[in-house]
């Protein structure tokens, strides 16, 4: 009897905790953000009735459309560069012996144990007029006078790629690990050259890793307001800067929420692409890929 009671209580406790914590701190607030995006701006109560689509109209308004587009472009370029560096890097690492591979992966993660804000500050020192970059460029005679690297879109992208590169490499590694080497050898035996082996076998089979990597680089990149704040110029704003500004400075919560809803919808769309890419690979004879 006693044991039965303990059994029921423990079980009940665990289930209640799970449901209530996730319900109160995840499900409800996400629904509230969506709800707030349809409310009217109210400086006393943050948001109030009546319901309106005004916030979404404002998101698409010319004043914000430019900033918005710019933010998408910055994050997009960041994702492409991270992929161009991360893909060959993950490929090379995946073909190494177990020890050197573990060591290199570990070394890649070490910078992550320092606060990312502090690392962005280090990049600020690196790219400054008197920073290491310019010192080397000037002393080797490549340029006459220091370049304006800091406070440009270049610096923002440099910083974003720096922070997010490992997030690209890890899912790609997982994909490369599952890549069946015998398929590549079969391709070679059947006379496919290196380019065809890559485009017909390796690339399609690592597609889930590519999509997963892009997903977890692109979405966070849009939100990293501190990177744009510290490294960017007046115009290199990210979506995160707009949202932060609406919530903490302008205090227009409904408008800020509308921007976030856009981000949530985009996340859903990208997850759908990931799901499709996975299906595609399974059809192609690859293995199930659970990178996320």
């Amino acid at each position, binding site marked *: 009897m006693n044991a039965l009671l303990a059994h029921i209580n423990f079980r009940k406790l665990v289930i209640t905790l799970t449901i209530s914590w996730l*319900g109160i701190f995840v499900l409800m607030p996400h629904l509230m953000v969506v709800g707030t995006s349809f409310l009217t701006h109210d400086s006393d109560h943050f948001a109030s009735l009546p319901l309106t689509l005004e916030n979404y109209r404002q998101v698409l308004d010319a004043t914000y459309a430019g900033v918005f587009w710019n933010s998408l472009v910055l994050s997009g370029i960041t994702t492409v560069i991270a992929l161009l560096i991360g893909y060959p890097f993950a490929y090379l690492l995946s073909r190494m012996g177990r020890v050197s591979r573990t060591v290199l992966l570990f070394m890649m993660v070490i910078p992550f144990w320092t606060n990312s804000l*502090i690392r962005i500050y280090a990049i600020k020192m690196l790219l400054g007029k008197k920073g290491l970059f310019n010192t080397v460029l000037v002393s080797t005679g490549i340029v006459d006078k220091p370049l304006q690297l800091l406070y440009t879109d270049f610096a923002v992208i440099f910083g974003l790629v*720096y922070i997010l590169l490992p997030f690209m490499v890890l899912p790609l590694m997982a994909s490369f690990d599952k890549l069946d080497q015998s398929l590549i050898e079969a391709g070679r035996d059947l006379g496919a050259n290196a380019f065809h082996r890559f485009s017909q076998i390796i690339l399609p089979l690592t597609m889930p890793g590519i999509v997963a990597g892009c997903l977890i680089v692109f979405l966070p990149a849009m939100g990293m307001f501190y990177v744009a704040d510290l490294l960017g110029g007046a115009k290199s704003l990210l979506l995160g800067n707009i949202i932060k500004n609406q919530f903490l400075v302008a205090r227009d919560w409904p408008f800020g929420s509308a921007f976030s809803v856009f981000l949530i919808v985009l996340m859903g769309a990208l997850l759908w692409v990931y799901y499709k890419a996975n299906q595609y690979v399974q059809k192609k004879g690859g293995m199930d890929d659970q990178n996320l």
Partner: protein
Amino acid sequence: MTRTSKSRTFSGVFKWLFIGLVFLYLYLPMVILVTNSFNKSKYGHKWSGFSWKWYEKLWENDSMMQAFGHSLLIAGLAATAATLIGTLMALAIHRYKFPLKNTASSMLFVLMMSPDIVLAITFLIIFIALGIQLGFWSLLIAHITFCLPFVVITVYAQMKNMDPNVLEAAKDLGASESQMFRIIILPILAPAVLAGWLLSFTLSLDDVIISSFVTGPGFEILPIRVFSMVKVGVSPEVNALATILLVMSLTLIAVTTYLIKRQNPQ
């Protein structure tokens, strides 16, 4: 034959050059931080001699040290709570059937995938709605919550590998659910739980975005303090702080790796 071996050496050189460049990119900023933390000169354009003075300055900077203390407190508490709750959640999802189970797993997935900026405003909105004052409690709850999915994933992966017969045997011998959890499941999962704690601790210390939204005037944590300092100009104390953080984390990893190795020799 010679041609192949020549092109092999070439691609070998190219390979290591590429890997070297990527690591240069990853490590250069770290090297600059550590070097400048010992540099006498404030601006760090050139080396002007070894000095501990930035560490002394950091020590004397009361608001910074207080924020550092607050950050460690939040990270320690959040990691511990997230590990506890996350392990129980993993157990619930692995062992129990209950209504809304799919919703619960989806919520964990959403939590992991949502960009920090979205989580930040969801937390801000719910804290205001529930009347939770922004400060210690809001930071703690937010940090526990965003660490949860990472603990659940780590622990759940290990749970799936567990031999179900052990639990069946325990059940037959009359063990209650909570006894089974304490005496069998938890010890088996210890390495995963430890890894989850370490991951949570780092995630909590690293967070800037969510903390910026849910912090209050009464309880300042490190990223907020650092942000306001480095926005204005150069502050070499930050270099010293970064070096301390790095050494601290590396020690923590070394200790954890040792503990896991000792527990799991294979």
